[in-house]
């Protein structure tokens, strides 16, 4: 993030004390799911819409100093020259539905898919941060994600403070205060993002799911190419083609020092122990599978041979051992027809 932030808790506007949301410094953490939802919504907007808006949900830390945006849903709205209409009924219903499935998440704010802030933004912002249905007493987070074609995606997060001289004007005015944000993904998301990122350079923007070995191969190739790059750099420094850097040298030396120093005999021993474990487990797993398959096959197979009995050619069944199940087809059949008649 190139932006740096200076946080100032500023005096409040002319609203009576206690009704305005706090404007204390705040850090916004965005999970990738939320951004993806927003982008998806942006793609699905109606042709005549400049921007679309929606509700952000997530969690708030205990002291309110950090807001984590976890998910988002779209809310229909229409903007005209002089008026804006947001489907608040829809927002409320959707929020209720969402909270049913995610009881831990709360309303934290809203998003728009254009960087512009205007009167309508203030109006919507005041709705979201208001009392009752809004986030009050916490500030509502406003997230703008610009989705203009041909430009970088630009994300900004704001909270608002009331401004305005009179109470009438306060409804459609707000001072948007930029707050720092951070895109954070958890351990669990990593593998998903990897799979998604695999598709980033392909023409059709899609990819299959890779197997363990394939992804291992890819990781190793990447490491090798990184090592190549570094050694090329080092070579060129030695050849005095590139200016040397002490910091870089120190960094590389530190990295090299991370290599563990282990006795060859220990490695040999650990290696042998582990490889045996691994192979034994693999072997056993497959044996178990075969055994079970066989046992189930046998359990049903003996009845196949018994099944021939109905036509009176059941001689071969005796070789099947006397597990007792085989003679029963006929009585069962008869019992079944008997039942059907009754």
């Amino acid at each position, binding site marked *: 993030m190139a932006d740096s932030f200076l946080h100032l808790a500023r005096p409040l506007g002319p609203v009576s004390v206690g009704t305005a949301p706090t404007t204390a410094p705040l850090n916004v953490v965005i999970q990738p799911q939320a951004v993806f939802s927003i982008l998806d919504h942006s793609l699905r907007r109606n042709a005549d819409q400049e921007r679309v808006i929606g509700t952000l949900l997530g969690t708030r830390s205990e002291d309110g100093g950090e807001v984590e945006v*976890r998910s988002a849903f779209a809310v229909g709205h229409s903007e005209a020259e002089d008026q804006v209409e947001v489907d608040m009924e829809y927002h409320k219903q959707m929020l209720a539905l969402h909270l049913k499935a995610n009881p831990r998440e709360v309303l934290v704010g809203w998003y728009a898919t254009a960087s512009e802030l205007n009167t309508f933004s203030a109006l919507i912002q005041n709705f979201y941060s208001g009392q009752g249905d809004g986030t009050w007493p916490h500030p509502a987070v406003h997230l703008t994600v610009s989705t203009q074609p041909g430009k970088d995606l630009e994300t900004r997060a704001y909270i608002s403070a009331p401004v305005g001289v009179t109470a009438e004007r306060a409804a459609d005015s707000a001072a948007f205060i930029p707050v720092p944000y951070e895109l954070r993904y958890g351990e669990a998301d990593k593998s998903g993002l990897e799979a998604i990122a695999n598709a980033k350079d392909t023409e059709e923007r899609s990819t299959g799911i*890779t197997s363990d070995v394939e992804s291992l191969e890819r990781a190793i190739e990447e490491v090798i190419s990184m090592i190549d790059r570094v050694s090329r750099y080092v070579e060129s420094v030695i050849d005095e083609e590139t200016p040397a850097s002490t910091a870089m040298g120190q960094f590389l030396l530190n990295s090299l020092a991370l290599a563990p120093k282990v006795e060859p005999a220990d490695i040999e021993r650990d290696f042998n122990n582990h490889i045996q*474990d691994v192979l034994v487990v693999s072997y056993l*797993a497959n044996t178990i599978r075969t055994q079970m398959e066989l046992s189930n096959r046998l359990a*049903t197979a003996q009845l196949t041979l018994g099944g021939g009995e109905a036509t009176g050619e059941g001689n071969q069944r005796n070789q099947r051992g006397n597990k007792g199940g085989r*003679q029963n087809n006929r009585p069962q059949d008869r019992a079944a027809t008997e039942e059907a008649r009754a």
Partner: protein
Amino acid sequence: MAESQSPLVAVKVEALVVMKIIKHCSQTFPTTATGSLVGLDNEGLLEITNSFPLPVVETPVESHSDNAAPNPAASAPRTKANAVYQAEMIRMIREVNIDANNVGWYTSANMGNWVNMNVIENQYFYQKEMNERTVALIHDVSRSAQGALSLRAFRLSAKFMEAFKENKFNSEELQKSTLRYQDIFEELPIEIHNSHLITSLIHQLQCPSASGPTDLPPSLSALESSPFSKSSTFTPNFDNLSLSVDPFLEKNCDLLLDSIEAHNTETNNYQYYQRVLGREQQKINNWKQKRSQENATRAALKQPLLPEDEWQRLFKLPAEPSRLEAMLNTRQVEQFSRQVDSFVSSATGKMFAVKGNMLPGETAN
């Protein structure tokens, strides 16, 4: 059925859905999470474009097998309350131009232990009640934590659907339908698809936006705090290179042991059934013999004969236990062993690599 077009051949999952599923599943881990998928059916290619989680409703579960532990989350997709929830949600998202066709459901799994009655019943419910062309997406949380994303799409095969409808799982029917454990599920290949905006976002996230040659860092601390040293590369994921082998294998062995136990119970049940059956059979035969002897003496004495089929009333044959559990168990074990195989193949590779690195002299031989 109206959809007599080409059968489903593949599943295309939007990146958004992948992330949403991961989020939901890992949040509720280790309890099972379930949710609903919406999208489009595009002539055999099922496009999943959005998803939403289903709330957990505490309702008594009607299950085909009584011994399945009642798990409200796992059975959520087929409860009545959730059918209502789902319909409501789909109605809502239609208003914001999201594809509003239900195309299946997803669930989380732990180490591939997803082959159970709940999954079968859910998918059966979907394919039968909702729409024939639906899939179950299975996200394995703990396998994904190992590195590679584990997301798979399954459907119940037509053969199995038929057998399950009539609950025909005794040996005779299984023989007739030649249904094997391999035939329970059909796996569909999955493709992950990104929208243009997401492609653009990922490109932007990966390379710090400095263009042109950068200056060399003045000091070590500057280097460490620069955006380059923590630049987030998504692919490849270096978690793959982790050398921890034992926890995974240990967990797998545990699961395998459980499966063996389940298998034993099933076999014992079956053997018990066979013993009882044999005993009853023996009794019937004895009775028949006695009766025919009696009738023979009666015939000799010119008395009226006694009916010979009374045994049907006197003796009751035990019902054959369903083979379904055993089949599922075998399928489950197959799943485990494949998983172990796949893990072992990469683990041995890594181990040989480490050995080769640590003992450089020996690789030459």
